């Protein structure tokens, strides 16, 4: 008996569908729902707790920075350094804002969107992350470096201002050699920060972004 190619294809299609549907029989899945709900809730709580701890840690670090520069602003008599202290406090506040804004954007993952919408959303998120890491030099390293530079340049001779605070005095780079040494150290530190951010953008985020763009193209192509 001759079978037409169309019928052959239909038979093959049905066979493939059967193979696919029978593949479920290779594993037995049993779920204890009551216990599962408890485990899921514990998991949700644990994730939320971890996020809260991370947020508190990051904000605390910035607040400690603000307090230190607030104290220096109050204590140090040098006008230019005082100005740098105000800039530093503003910069710490900006870092808190920027980091919270970025986290808010990244946490909006809605997995019940269609594949196309989900990919579009992921592309935007990844692009924002890449931009944030790429531009770290401008919003993170450079403002902080300039503020530190002004801070160090502004440091004068304490006796000119009748200022005595042995603890702060011993910590500040007051001599020219100490100033140069500190500035070289800061240059390396911020250079490294820029490099590590660029590296994360190029090695981690951009390849993912490219993958998302490829899948979007695959989807749109007829």
């Amino acid at each position, binding site marked *: 008996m001759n079978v037409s190619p169309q019928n052959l*294809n239909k038979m*093959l*299609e049905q*066979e*493939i*569908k059967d*193979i*696919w*549907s*029978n*593949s*479920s*029989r*290779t*594993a*037995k*899945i*049993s*779920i*204890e*729902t*009551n*216990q*599962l*709900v*408890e*485990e*899921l809730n514990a*998991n*949700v709580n644990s994730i939320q707790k971890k996020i809260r701890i991370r947020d508190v840690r990051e904000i605390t670090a910035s607040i400690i920075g603000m307090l230190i520069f607030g104290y220096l602003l109050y204590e140090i008599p040098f006008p230019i350094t005082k100005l740098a202290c105000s800039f530093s406090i503003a910069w710490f506040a900006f870092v808190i804002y920027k980091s919270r804004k970025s986290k808010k954007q990244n946490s909006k993952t*809605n*997995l*019940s*969107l*269609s*594949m*196309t*919408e*989900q990919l579009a959303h*992921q592309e935007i998120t990844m692009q924002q992350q890449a931009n944030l890491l790429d531009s770290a030099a401008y919003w993170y390293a450079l403002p902080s470096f300039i503020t530190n530079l002004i801070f160090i340049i502004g440091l004068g001779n304490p006796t000119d201002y009748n200022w005595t605070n042995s603890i702060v005095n011993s910590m500040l780079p007051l001599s020219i050699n100490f100033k140069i040494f500190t500035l070289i150290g800061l240059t390396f530190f911020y250079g490294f920060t820029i490099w590590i951010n660029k590296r994360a953008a190029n090695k981690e985020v951009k390849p*993912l972004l490219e*993958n*998302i763009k*490829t*899948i979007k193209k*695959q*989807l749109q192509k*007829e």
Partner: protein
Amino acid sequence: MKNKLERTFEQILDKNKQKIYRICRIYAVAPIEPQDLFQEVVFQIWKSLESFKSKSSIDTWVYKITINVCLRSKLKLDKKNTKTERFESIHIVPIAQEIDASELEKFKYLKECISTLNHTETSLILLYLDDLPYKEIATITGLSDNHIAVKMKRIRKKLFECITPKLK
């Protein structure tokens, strides 16, 4: 005493666990195992269930979550893309010894052929093999019915060309 949400969740899992696991088996890439992906899908279903709006059927919604979780895992978009701690309440026991060897072999061929498809084609063929109509595949993927029809024609051809000599 189970509340309404828990009862709905139980019904969803009862009805969909096999098809979720089938899809997870295709997407899982070492060190991620199908069970890790399955667990993540179940977790995301539970997390999103309260906000489920009945714009589409619950089955379509489950497919959307499954495909999105699996695709994210494959693309390594999830930072926690490593082996997770297994839930004690989910037991997945292989029962391969009860299955005919030729059936297992056929599934191996199918898996091999699906792995030659790209990410988009894989998602579409899995939905198609689950016998979903184009309209539902369109809702899950966000493409039009016509677009799906055109794509499916090509994907089916690719799959047939790959699997036919293996099944003979």
